[in-house]
């Protein structure tokens, strides 16, 4: 067992920092994957959901007889049929003690509150038979007025989204820095200010639009159930399904196989998951439900949708004095898993990287007769970052200052870290100046400014603008103690196990559940360094509650920062146990052992060494083991962070705007992000690229539009504009590295940075191109029509095109709802 030759000890090559290509790819590039919808079980039945075509109405009758008799149909269930067992879709985040939750049946029983809500489910022998029978269910509705506009919803005498509630307000959340002791009195700051700039920003409604439609398969085995679901959160789903349906937690196994993207959109406990479990329980047969794209866009939760009233106070020299935010956040018709928590997370980020002495945040969660909103990439931080980065530009205009100079004057300086913000967050590390300098060089800032001047002077029809976003965000959800103080229903720790197999191979079990992020590769790199075993000898297991029994899954840029930290801590425990065995085997004191490159060696005794992989075999045999030690060197670890981590960066966008057509086109985009220690630069770059695409898409392309009757008119990829390769520019990316002190890796999180930072940089750039022509705001997305109208008619470009979309609102009015309003008669959208 001891090695024969004496080799000089040299430091092994570190895996962390290497641009390892991904282990995950082999099955994905060859089509040998395990998407949930690929699964076929003997006797499996197929579900199709009958959905409400009206935004708000009483169900006065459902006739399922024709559907029941249709070929291949096994059963048809209505809300009434499952009313006693379906419970309510859970909301885990009561952000205030008096938050109003109307309850959320998986299948509507008496009333529907948004278009697309489930009213019945067909169970049939084939998917086609189930879908054919959907058409045969006859539902009668007594129509009620639809609430679609948040500002109207909070006005006196507003119509009600839920007529059993007193108002459309779910909650009123306040964070006041003065009251919290983290800042000065905000009203006084504004009263004393030399300059106040106020703006109303609209965060349009977005759809996460993961590429893999949601899918669920449930297999009953006696009183046990296995659910495969295209979910980001198998662990949370298992707990919540047990609570909602009464299937005991230990009788339920949830598996997330390969999952085709999530972006927060699969951080949910969905009605369809509950329905699938109920049907499988009732019929004792395996069932599958897979959505169509239209169902996905219409009924999977949406994101963003805020109206932001932002006031900033400053002196004439450009020193900021106070920030005041009043937010209306659209919850849609119901509260889902973390719907109320999304805008509340933003409360701690509106102040951005700036030293506001005073800060007050108020948010009203509003019900409307639309699809519920919940997490979408960034969840609260993109909204906050947009508001502060836009208002800083507006303040710069008001003060006639360079927007970068204004930012520099007010941002936290490198030597001031750790810095406690006016929102009470302790920013861990960073250097905004260096990141900004690097980004300016990367984009060629001075040349672009010179070109901008030339185009202005020559009155070029194509104008150039440059927009900046200097951002930070909070990652690594989350310290359990902080979540507790915000009334969240769970902790924010993460769990990992390491199993040392007899042949020296290593299984790493992670409670974080990837859906494209590359955990299998990055976790292998972490463990390879800590255990000194080859990268190839490590397998990462995840996403199955029977394999990975403890975990809180993947969202909020938490996997590496929290889950990776748990993996590292588990590896350290393995090494500690193995050290004891090594000392026993080598007949040395533990204190005399060095551990490097996967080998324990006795200091000063050349040749006396044993590898950790050899110890794994010795542990399996357990023939010769230290007295009193159980024969295992496996280890578990649960990591609960003390603090969030705070990635930051500077994003710069150069935008061309054709003043004759309104066409806006990104000419160049450069960003420098500090995400702490980089475990795999290839994956980090990929995460930044993908994040940028989604942030730019919010600025330029995407919007979930409802017509005046509450129909989603962007219910397919024909109308909901997920950008293609031809719509997006090349990105120039760079990094600075300031390690996060709060975890053993030093990583800060990268999953959401690109999305959070990019949206305001793009809008600031477009405005910079045309501000001299009298435009001070353009609503997102910056469609050519909006830009043209802002240029030629004034204002912010207004609502989406009066012509609506292909699914024109006016044309649908008489047939779907039978109610004509001034807006619907004009085909107007809301």
């Amino acid at each position, binding site marked *: 067992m001891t090695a024969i030759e004496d080799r000089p000890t040299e430091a092994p090559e570190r895996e962390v*920092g290497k641009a390892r290509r*991904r282990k995950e790819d082999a099955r994905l590039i*060859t089509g040998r994957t395990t998407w949930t919808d690929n699964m076929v079980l003997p006797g499996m039945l197929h579900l199709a959901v009958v959905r409400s075509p009206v935004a708000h109405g009483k169900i006065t009758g459902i006739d399922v007889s024709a559907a029941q008799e249709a070929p291949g149909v096994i059963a048809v269930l209505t809300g009434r049929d499952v009313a006693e067992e379906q419970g309510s879709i859970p909301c885990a985040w009561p952000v205030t003690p008096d938050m109003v939750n109307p309850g959320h049946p998986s299948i509507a029983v008496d009333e529907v509150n948004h278009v697309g809500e489930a009213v019945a489910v067909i169970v049939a022998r084939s998917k086609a038979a189930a879908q054919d029978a959907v058409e045969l269910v006859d539902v009668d509705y007594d129509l009620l007025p639809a609430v679609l506009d948040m500002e109207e919803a909070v006005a006196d005498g507003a119509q009600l989204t839920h007529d059993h509630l007193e108002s459309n307000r779910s909650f009123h959340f306040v964070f006041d820095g003065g009251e919290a002791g983290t800042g000065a009195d905000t009203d006084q700051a504004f009263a004393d200010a030399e300059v106040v700039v106020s703006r109303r920003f609209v965060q349009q409604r977005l759809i996460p639009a993961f590429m893999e439609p949601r899918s669920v398969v449930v297999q009953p085995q006696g009183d046990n159930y296995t659910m495969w679901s295209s979910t980001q959160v198998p662990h949370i789903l298992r707990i919540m399904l047990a609570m909602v349906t009464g299937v005991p937690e230990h009788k339920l196994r949830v598996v997330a196989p390969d999952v085709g993207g999530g972006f927060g959109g699969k951080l949910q406990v969905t009605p369809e998951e509950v329905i699938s479990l109920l049907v499988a329980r009732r019929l004792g047969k395996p069932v599958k439900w897979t959505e169509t*794209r239209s169902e996905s866009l219409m009924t999977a939760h949406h994101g963003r949708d805020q109206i932001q009233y932002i006031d900033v106070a400053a002196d004439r020299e450009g020193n900021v004095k106070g920030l005041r935010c009043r937010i209306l956040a659209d919850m849609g018709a119901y509260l889902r898993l973390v719907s109320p928590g999304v805008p509340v997370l933003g409360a701690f980020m509106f102040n951005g990287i700036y030293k506001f002495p005073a800060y007050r945040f108020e948010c009203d969660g509003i019900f409307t007769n639309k699809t519920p909103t919940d997490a979408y990439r960034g969840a609260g931080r993109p909204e906050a970052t947009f508001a502060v980065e836009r208002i800083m530009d507006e303040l710069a205009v008001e003060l006639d200052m360079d927007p970068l100079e204004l930012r520099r004057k007010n941002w936290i300086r490198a030597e001031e870290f750790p810095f406690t913000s006016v929102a009470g967050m302790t920013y861990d590390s960073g250097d905004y100046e260096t990141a900004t300098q690097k980004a300016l060089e990367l984009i060629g800032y001075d040349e672009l400014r010179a070109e901008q001047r030339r185009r202005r002077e020559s009155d070029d029809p194509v104008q150039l603008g440059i927009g900046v976003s200097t951002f930070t965000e909070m990652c690594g959800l989350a310290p359990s103690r902080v979540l507790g103080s915000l009334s969240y229903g769970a902790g924010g720790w993460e769990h990992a196990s390491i199993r040392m197999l007899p042949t020296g191979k290593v299984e790493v079990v992670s409670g974080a559940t990837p859906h494209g992020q590359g955990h299998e590769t990055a976790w292998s790199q972490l463990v390879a360094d800590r255990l000194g075993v080859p990268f190839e000898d490590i397998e990462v297991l995840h996403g199955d509650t029977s394999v990975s029994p403890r975990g809180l899954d993947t969202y909020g840029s938490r996997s590496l920062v929290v889950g990776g930290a748990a993996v590292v801590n588990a590896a350290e425990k393995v090494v500690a146990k193995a050290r004891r065995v090594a000392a026993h085997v080598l007949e040395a004191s533990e204190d005399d052992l060095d551990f490097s490159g996967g080998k324990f060696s006795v200091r000063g005794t050349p040749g006396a060494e044993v590898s950790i992989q050899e110890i794994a075999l010795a542990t399996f045999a357990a023939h010769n083991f230290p007295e009193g030690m159980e024969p295992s060197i496996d280890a578990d670890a649960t990591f609960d962070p003390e603090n969030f981590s705070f990635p930051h960066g500077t994003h710069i966008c150069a935008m061309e705007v054709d003043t004759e057509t309104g066409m806006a086109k990104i000419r160049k985009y450069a960003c420098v992000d500090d995400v702490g220690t980089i475990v795999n*630069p290839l994956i980090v770059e990929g995460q930044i690229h*993908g*994040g940028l695409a989604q942030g730019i898409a919010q600025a330029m392309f995407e919007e979930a539009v409802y017509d005046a009757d509450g129909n989603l008119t962007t219910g397919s990829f024909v109308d909901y504009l997920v950008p*293609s*390769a*031809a719509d997006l520019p090349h990105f120039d990316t760079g990094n600075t590295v300031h390690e996060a002190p709060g975890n053993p890796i030093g990583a800060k999180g990268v999953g959401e940075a690109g999305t959070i930072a990019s949206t305001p940089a793009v809008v600031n750039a477009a405005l910079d191109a045309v501000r001299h022509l009298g435009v001070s705001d353009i609503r997102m997305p910056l469609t050519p029509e909006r830009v043209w109208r802002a240029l030629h008619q004034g204002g912010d470009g207004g609502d989406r095109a009066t012509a609506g979309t292909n699914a024109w609102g006016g044309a649908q009015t008489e047939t779907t709802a039978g109610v004509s309003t001034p807006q619907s008669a004009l085909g107007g959208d809301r």
Partner: protein
Amino acid sequence: MTQINVRVDGVTYTDDVEPRTLLVHYLREQLGKVGTVIGCDTSNCGACTVHLDGAAVKSCTVLAVQADGGEVTTIEGLAPNGGLHPMQKAFHEMHGLQCGYCTPGMIMASVDLLKENPDPSDSEVREGIEGNLCRCTGYQNIVRAVQQAAGEMRTAGNGHTSPAEVDTAAAPHVAAQQ
């Protein structure tokens, strides 16, 4: 039911299908060719792209009966003998995928693009794969991958395949940043 004869990934099948059956449903449900996936139902996303008689088609927009007498290649049959097509290898090497759901269709569309244009510029790749949506990557690494595969295929010829095993060595084009 209508009877069709179709050759898929080198195997000939004779099957009865409903006239309304889409090619993608036939591939997935009757043949078990689940490497080809469905993303949108409206022919916008391209996740279901396969080759029919040598040209890329969105298999959600083709009826199974239209493939009667035809030859279909899916991602599962792109490289003979279980190897990797240069495009598959390039997507891996350039990190042109994250969740991987769009990847089969993206690869099939990109292979078809190179038939038309064996040496596309950045913008020609972007225009050429416009009919395929990816939500994860922001496309930049996909563009890199297509160009890398183009280079390899120009030197080695179109029939070239690599061993099936993917190489997880560090990507040379990305500098370690520690």
